[in-house]
């Protein structure tokens, strides 16, 4: 386990010393702040826009970080031949994969928490200024739902890192990004794809859609941003099942990466 932590630590260190990460984080903060400006010009929609845009910004930036840093997780180590150093030491290949995953997952945890704090302060500021108005329009502040939306968002990042990690262990960054975004897009709309297939009533496409629905993670499950704005029921049961769903999927993705990497030649 110590070796896993060492690898995770180094992955984290690499991420926070990476300029790509800084530009993305700065971009995220700018997006969150700009929601305030957009909000001031749109009257009573004020609060909705700060929350909505802010959560969307966290989502977009988090996904970009997951994909862009995820794609290099293993690929870079092979390409730059650092694997020769790592694996001349007594570390098992699966320990390395786990460490790489945890390192990026931890990086994203810090970034998500950071962005969430900034956004929450902003939301607090706007909501307290227009407290009566907000309560009238939205039936309350829905702070719990807000944090729940952030939490689910992080679960989605965990799955995306897992997908990027798989591609990273056998293909080039460009293909990795392409495939990861493709899977992400299908995953976000997998519910719709299934509905669409039911509409057209073609048995072949119905089976195809069913397979996609079953195999590709249904990322729509993690979007509860509208509940964070308008309120809505987020039961403990839903939170539990969504968490379990994310964990099981992530584990499956990790195991797949480990299997691919186990047989990999470094030549």
């Amino acid at each position, binding site marked *: 386990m110590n070796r896993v932590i060492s690898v995770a630590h*180094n992955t984290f260190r690499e991420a926070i010393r990476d300029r790509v990460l800084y530009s993305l984080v700065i971009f995220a903060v700018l997006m969150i702040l700009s929601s305030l400006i957009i909000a001031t010009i749109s009257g009573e929609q004020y609060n909705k826009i700060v929350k909505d845009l802010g959560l969307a910004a966290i989502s977009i930036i988090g996904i970009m970080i997951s994909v862009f840093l995820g794609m290099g997780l293993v690929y870079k180590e092979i390409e730059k031949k*650092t694997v*020769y*150093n790592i694996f001349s*030491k007594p570390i098992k290949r699966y320990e390395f994969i786990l460490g790489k995953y945890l390192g990026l997952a931890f990086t994203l945890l810090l970034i998500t928490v950071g962005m969430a704090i900034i956004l929450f302060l902003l939301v607090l500021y706007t909501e307290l200024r227009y407290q009566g108005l907000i309560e009238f329009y939205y039936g309350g502040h829905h702070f719990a739902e807000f944090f729940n939306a952030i939490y689910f968002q992080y679960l989605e990042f965990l799955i995306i890192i897992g997908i990027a990690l798989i591609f990273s262990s056998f293909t080039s960054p460009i293909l990795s990004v392409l495939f990861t975004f493709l899977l992400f897009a299908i995953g976000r709309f997998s519910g719709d794809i299934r509905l669409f297939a039911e509409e057209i009533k073609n048995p072949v496409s119905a089976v195809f859609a069913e397979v996609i629905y079953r195999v590709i993670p249904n990322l729509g499950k993690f979007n509860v941003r509208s509940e964070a704005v308008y309120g809505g029921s987020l039961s403990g049961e839903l939170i539990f099942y969504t968490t379990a769903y994310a964990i099981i999927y992530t584990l499956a993705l990790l195991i797949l990466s480990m299997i691919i990497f186990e047989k990999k030649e470094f030549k």
Partner: protein
Amino acid sequence: MLEVNNLIKNFKTGFLGKEVTVLRGVSFCVESGEIFGFVGPNGAGKTTTFKCILGFALKSGGTINLMGETNGKVGIKSRIGYLPENPYFYDYLTGEELLRYMGELHGIKGKALEDKMDVLLSKVNMSHARKVQLRKYSKGMLQRIGIAQALINDPEFIILDEPMSGLDPIGRREIKDLILEEKAKGKTILLSSHMLSDVEALCDRVALLMSGRVVRTGTIGELLNEIHTDYELFLEGSGDDIQEHVRDLSVELEERAGYLVLKFDEDIKARVLEAIMKSSAEIVSLHPMRKSLEGLFVEEASKNE
């Protein structure tokens, strides 16, 4: 310590996966406590052999017995130190961060690790750059930190791929001393080089690798014995006259800097001198060509063309 037997490695290349054979039955063994040189021109397959030994590349045939293990268990690596060829490291790490990371992977930690790092950094003369990021290191500095990380676990068996490359003469001297110091501590060292001058002064035994085959193995002395010593004789005088006298002997003649130069093997030395005495030419100098593996190297290389 290490026994490689008939090692074969094929690579699939290109789009169609055409197979190329890089190692065609490499055999050699490294005895405990010796410095073993693995020598051959670029592209001979030295690095590929090391990758098979360490399990980075899967062998296509043959056997490798590394400290009693034949299928490369991970645990054995705690007794090995390895310096990859042209080491590239995480360029965002500083020298000491790299060493710490590598040490942690060996399960070394705390004060033991910090102490070991101090010792190694000063041993490879890198203490001044310990807090500098590796992206700012020169090739020679990377080589030094690479050797330091290979020694972090005090390994019994040290595998160094081209340890002298990228170093200036002083650096090479230092690395040689360091290798000899490890040997004196009872460690076994396997090093590769395309430079014969490196191994000649350092190795107990060498294997000569050419196009994926070991063509010679032995001590430096044994290999040198196989080489005929050439002599060069510088003469002053009439060329025609001399040619006449040495016609029946296998002597190469050439003109250099106004002198006539005769080149010949040791075994006909006496007869050549006798012939010269009879001629009208004056001997300016006679000297043996420096004994070296270089000749053997070139000879084998041309055989393999």
